[in-house]
């Protein structure tokens, strides 16, 4: 079940499109926020709210990389390893996250503090290597800088 606030938000978003189904992507974002990830409950809630068949909602949800289909840590490290970042050492940073924090790509630390997601280009190539941590950009990363950043996220 979606919270009342979420339903209200969804109804407002719904008004921005001529078709209810166009609100599916935003609705899935809301459901992901509410449920933590998109499981059967989340899809059913969205399906009921918008009248999109649930199998279709799930088909759409699984198409997009930013919808999560399992529980995530409290903070999500989204490290870019595409070409510009790769040639400037992003893969080493990924190794560093693994060795230092036990953070494997796609994995979550046992204390649920961090999850690591490997991203395709995040549009910070000029300041590569870069990552998003939750909604914030961190650029020109080094191992030391990553340590400092992660320190801020409890």
């Amino acid at each position, binding site marked *: 079940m979606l919270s009342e606030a979420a339903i209200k938000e969804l109804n407002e978003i719904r008004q*921005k*499109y001529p*078709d209810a189904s166009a609100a599916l992507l935003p609705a899935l974002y809301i459901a992901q926020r509410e449920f933590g990830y998109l499981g059967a409950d989340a899809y059913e809630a969205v399906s009921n709210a918008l009248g999109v068949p649930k199998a279709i909602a799930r088909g759409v949800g699984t198409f*997009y*990389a930013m919808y999560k289909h399992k529980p995530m840590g409290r903070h999500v490290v989204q490290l870019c390893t*595409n*070409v510009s970042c790769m*040639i400037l050492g992003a893969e080493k940073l990924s190794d560093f996250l693994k060795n230092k924090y036990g953070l494997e790509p796609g994995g979550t630390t046992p204390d649920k503090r961090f999850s690591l997601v490997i991203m395709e*280009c995040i549009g910070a190539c000029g300041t590569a290597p870069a990552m998003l941590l939750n909604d*914030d950009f961190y650029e020109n990363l080094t191992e030391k800088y990553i340590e400092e950043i992660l320190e801020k996220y409890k």
Partner: protein
Amino acid sequence: MEKVLLKNIDNPNSADINEYKRVGGYRSLPKAFEDKPQEITEMVKKSGLRGRGGAGFPVAMKWLFACADTKFPKYLLCNADEGEPGTFKDRPILEKNPHLLIEGMVISGYAIGAQYGYIYLRGEYPGAYHILNRAIAQAYENNLLGDNILGKGIKFHLVVHRGAGAYICGEETALIESLEGNKGQPRMRPPFPVNVGVFAKPTVVNNVETLSNIPLIIEIGGEEYSKIGSPDCPGLKLYCVSGYVEKPGVYELPMGTILRDIIYKHCGGIKDGKNLKAVIPGGITTPVLPPDKIDCPMDFVNMPKHGSMLGSGAVIVMDETVCLVRVCHRTLKFLEHESCGKCTPCREGTGWLRSILERIENGAGVEGDIELLLSVSGNMLGKTFCPLGDGAASVVQNYIKHFRNEFEEHIKNGECKYE
């Protein structure tokens, strides 16, 4: 030259409507409303403006097609998916100069008769999402968006729609599908979006940078604008440079600036004085160029003549320490991940190419692998539903074309000599 697209962006408040107005923003809008919509399109036609999203399609032509369709309402979509790796040119506009885009969209909407606009923003730009929403709210407050803009009876509404992580949604028909709440898979053409686009209505899709050029065209006129940059392909262009240069970043320069100049003049040359090995001129799916092929004017008309494409103007510079097999492999890994899966050659071929490249890079390549790469990519090229699959095939062919020895070396030595 004074910056236009990136004007005032060093000012921390540049995204605020008052700052934007202070430096001359929202002056083109009332000016545009004095003209008839057709006159604006005419002006854009004179300007020679081409789309900045990658394909370089003449903007006015697209608008005219949409105008000619009588279905109602019409939609203007701003392509802010900026997914081509290496590209980060739209982001400064979205984050620092959102009102320029809004102003451009209101004018463009007026020109084509669209009363509704959506900005399809890539999911990976959460910051820009909030900034755009704030800017749109301010524009509504200032009567620059709404049912009766500036009291002139002109209606335009604007909504930001967040994508959710799919490169293919940058392709305009996939973008439309995605905006409708579907999987981002390209649509059949015809019918073209200008006739049957989003919600089955006539739709114009333009890139952020394209739309952000409109206020300048209104300000100085089409003719004047056409004098900027390349005569074949005029205007301002944002080049975004990354990789091994001294000063990576986004550069606002006249269209047609020579690639070598971008790297050596504007970006301060190769980092740490190393040797240049290869340049990707327009995002990772555009053909890679060896160091002796970079004296080319970076515009839509001239780049193909020099064996590549302008693409999104995303220049990635690689020095002698970079393994190109690895870059090629990473590119295919990306394209495999982003293939929408609709058509057979791309869905199956990207993965196959990636796996061959993977074994070569890992030192497990065997004789015949290069021919296999060429044959498999040949079976894709020209047979896919949309340009993504073609791009994957041409990437492989171009790396082999210019750097075959590097592939051979990997196979012969059974290892990658780069770190």
